[in-house]
């Protein structure tokens, strides 16, 4: 009972109908991240346009509902934002996830991603939620470094 709150309708919805899934061209950087605890994997591509505006985040992978839904939510949240804006959302999301359930989520910053708040109570699942977000951060940092 306790934790079923983790499986928010919204998460199941994104899992069943993932947004922006599939690897697309063109892209600046492609990264591949793995969660060794469970074998979940994601390949993620980022295309950054003028003025640091994200043009596309495309991805493919395998994993549980949490990791898949998190990627879908990430795709939605990044669309049309600047790298800088998205990185502050990533930071807030990371803070929420690593807060062991003690951190209050900032819904204004997180939007739909707030649905993952329940995951923070399950240390073993935090990595699932973060997989695509960490991959994204890695990808934009590498893009910028080029």
């Amino acid at each position: 009972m306790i934790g079923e709150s983790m499986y928010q309708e919204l998460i199941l919805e994104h899992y069943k109908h993932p947004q922006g899934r599939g690897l697309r061209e063109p892209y600046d950087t492609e990264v591949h991240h793995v969660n060794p605890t469970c074998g979940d994997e994601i390949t993620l591509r980022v295309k950054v346009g003028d003025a640091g505006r994200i043009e596309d985040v495309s991805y493919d992978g395998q994993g549980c509902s949490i990791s898949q839904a998190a990627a879908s939510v990430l795709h939605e949240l990044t669309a049309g934002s600047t790298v800088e804006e998205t990185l502050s959302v990533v930071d807030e999301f990371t803070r929420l996830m690593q807060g062991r359930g003690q951190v209050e989520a900032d819904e204004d910053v997180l939007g739909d991603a707030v649905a993952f708040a329940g995951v923070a109570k399950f240390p073993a699942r935090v990595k699932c939620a973060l997989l695509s977000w960490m991959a994204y951060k890695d990808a934009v940092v590498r893009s910028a470094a080029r």
Partner: protein
Amino acid sequence: MTSTSLDVERIRKDFPVLSRELPGGRPLVYLDSGNSSQKPTSVVETMREHLAMHYSNVGRAMHVLGSESTEAYESARDKVAAFIGAPSRDEVVFTKNASEALNLVAYSFGNPACADPRFTLGPGDEIVISEMEHHSNIVPWQMLAQRTGATLKWFGVTDEGRLDLADGVVTERTKIVSVAHQSNVLGTVNPVADVVALARRAGALVLLDASQSVPHHPVDMAALDADFVAFTGHKMVGPSGIGVLWARGELLEAMPPFLGGGEMIEAVWMDRSTYAPAPHKFEAGTPPIVEAIGLGAAVDYLTGIGMAAVEAHERELTAYALDALREVPGLRLIGPDSLDLRGGTLAFTLEGIHPHDVGQILDDRFGIAVRVGHHCARPLHLRFGIPATTRASFYLYNTTGEVDALVRGLHHVQKVFA
């Protein structure tokens, strides 16, 4: 239906956690003993009493506490030796877990300081493992191959989840064959005699990873006829922090020491040392004293129940569970689906639902603890083309009622993800 072999209700009372109510009022249904088992009161209390009232360092101390600790530690060795039918107590080496035991053997190959031809290893020489191994019986050999230039080879696994003892894997160049006695995913019990025969013909040594067999079956070193056998305390109602390597005395003598330090020596000068005879040669530093004593209590507990009865009980549970799981739509069992040469470990996938989600909902909703993921056997999962499975593993304290709970739980999971 209740088991005919064991008085499970009485046994369950010996394991305090099994009566625990989890947050949200869920009872605990612990089906993760293949990962680590629960501990009976006798083990917990033996450790508590020793730590509180009799503790001191072993071997080196010559006072009342020192002799009480040494006596208890060494008698744990006697108990383990008797439990596994070791020809000699001096063949029982205490390690921190099965992984250390496996690494200890791997590190004794290709050590330039050891000239014994059985343990030399270099380019052209071969190490043989299998595709169903736990990472702890894969990675040490990969690392050994990297250090020495030897070649790592492996037996495949059949679609049914059996070891494929194909020709040509073991050759004249093979120095060591290291395979699981029982797979921690498939439940498969491997044909030790066949593996030993293959290895002997090639002049290779044989290591059995018995982490999943010693806790669940009567296992006898003399009957197995392997050269090395590794297992771990925490999976056999013993504490964490203690494992066992059994090896033929003659090999322990030939092997170079692994960890150097106090207690494993005979005499030390600044520029050289001589070593103590086995088992002490392989027990550098202060050993896991209270942990070995706890393992001794675990072995007493299992002996009191009888390993044949434990095995029979798990067999009944497994038969019951195989039948019950067959009824779950979209469930694919990974591993043998008959009782033939298999233990009480059932790994499966549910069509369209990630094991993570299965495990989490079973836990969240029903307090059912299963393991989800690749169970430290990623290559085996790659072999079956799946990233992960859900695994239920049974022990002496499990009931058919718990199997029923699992099946109900799986139906619920399917409803959530429908």
